[in-house]
């Protein structure tokens, strides 16, 4: 198993140190409890929010949006990557446009998206899809385009057709790169969803954080931030497990 999955004590040290420092600074009362609430206070509101179901609900709402947006982006990136690899002649028709889209910060689209798609779920999902699609396509492209020519020659020698070369050599050799792209894309998804929820939403973790600010509940905001981090870690972890199950060789490459 790769280091990625081991929840060993070395990984926990940094968290312990941070929380320790936080406890000390809070005890010293350098800042008011509004600016920096004590860990106990944050813990207490986290428990309250868990029991009331508020935290879980906000997390689930955000998760659903990420799942949809990320999934759609992956399908688009994968299909376009496949098209580009199978029909390289078509690439010039879309690469410039994709690069153009890729450089637009997704949050800048929110005003237009609200206008066109309303403040419902679809505008958030579209923001995530747009934020995730570009970086993920880059990885799919790098994976399929970066296939070792020497391996392709082995396929030619055993008499593979173009289709066989693709399915039996290009695609399998691209999976590690595609996997990296998915993990990077996941990071983009999380960033985009929180932004979108802060601007135009009445639910989700981003909204929860913004709402805590207006209610002067810094402790709740911190709970929200931690929840995002934990959600991201869990999703990354789940993705890692899935890929290792599907492609056991990746950890051995």
């Amino acid at each position, binding site marked *: 198993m790769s280091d990625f999955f081991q929840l060993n004590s070395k990984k926990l040290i940094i968290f312990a140190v941070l929380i320790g420092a936080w406890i000390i600074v809070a005890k010293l009362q350098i800042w008011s409890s509004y600016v920096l609430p004590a860990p106990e206070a944050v813990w207490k509101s986290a428990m309250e929010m868990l029991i009331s179901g508020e935290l879980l609900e906000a997390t689930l709402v955000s998760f659903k949006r990420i799942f949809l947006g990320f999934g759609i982006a992956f399908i688009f990136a994968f299909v376009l990557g496949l098209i580009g690899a199978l029909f390289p002649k078509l690439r010039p028709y879309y690469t410039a446009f994709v690069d153009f889209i890729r450089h637009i910060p997704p949050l800048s689209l929110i005003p237009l998206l609200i206008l066109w798609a309303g403040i419902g779920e679809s505008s958030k999902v579209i923001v995530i899809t747009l934020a995730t699609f570009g970086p993920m396509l880059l990885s799919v492209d790098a994976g399929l385009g970066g296939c070792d020519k*020497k*391996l392709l*020659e*082995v*396929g*030619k*020698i*055993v*008499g*593979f057709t173009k289709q066989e070369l693709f399915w*039996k*050599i290009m695609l*399998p*050799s691209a*999976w590690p790169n595609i996997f990296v792209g998915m993990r990077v894309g996941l990071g983009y998804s999380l960033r985009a969803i929180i932004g979108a929820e802060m601007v135009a939403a009445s639910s989700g973790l981003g909204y929860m954080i913004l709402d805590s600010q207006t209610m002067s509940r810094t402790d709740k905001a911190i709970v929200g931030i931690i929840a995002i981090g934990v959600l991201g870690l869990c999703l990354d972890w789940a993705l890692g497990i899935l890929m290792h199950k599907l*492609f056991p*060789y*990746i950890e*051995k*490459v």
Partner: protein
Amino acid sequence: MKALIVQDLEKSYFLQENKHSVLNKLSFTATLGEITVLLGRSGCGKTTLLRLLSGLEVADAGTISIPPTKKVGMMFQEARLMPWLTCEENIAFGLPKNYDKKYIDNLIKTVGLEDFKKAYPTQLSGGMQQRAALARTLAQHSDIILMDEPFAALDYFTRLQMQQEVLRIKDMLGTGIIFVTHNIDEALAIGDKILVMDKGKISQEIYVPKVSDRDVLQEPFISFKKQILQALMY
């Protein structure tokens, strides 16, 4: 029966706009059921020649005739195993789904990898990877096999063992083998015909008499060795 006939083959590459001729009107023939050894110094064009014969590259001029029903296989200078496949899957690479499992199992045994069937290429040593590549090539049932320094990564003893294996397969299946090496002893040990390559041409052709038990330390092999050394020493 002739496995292939090569006539006046020419190939050059361009290096920074300078034409660099690698093969220069090279001709030879190879026979089925025989091992034709190509011997030459590093950079003399052996790999280039095999790439032309296998169809991976196209010659500038000249002809290569291979009987149309004959299947050509190739073992590359590097192992070129698929990193995502196990040793066993690599050896059966490109075979139809209903391939003869027994035959593959036997091949795996003869190259001594039976304990590493489920290992991935990165878990194999360089020599083991090379042996897996040999098994993969033999699994293809080609009529003509091109081998590019197949045993360069092997120790002396394993190399001898693999040479015997190639000889056995050739005798059993009547395969025509073009075998590239720069090891003169190896050439003498397995070649039926030794072609010395120099300056883009075949500069010497040595026909090795068919003897059942070759002793490379006896005549006529000693004279052959001198002849080859003289041809390549300058």
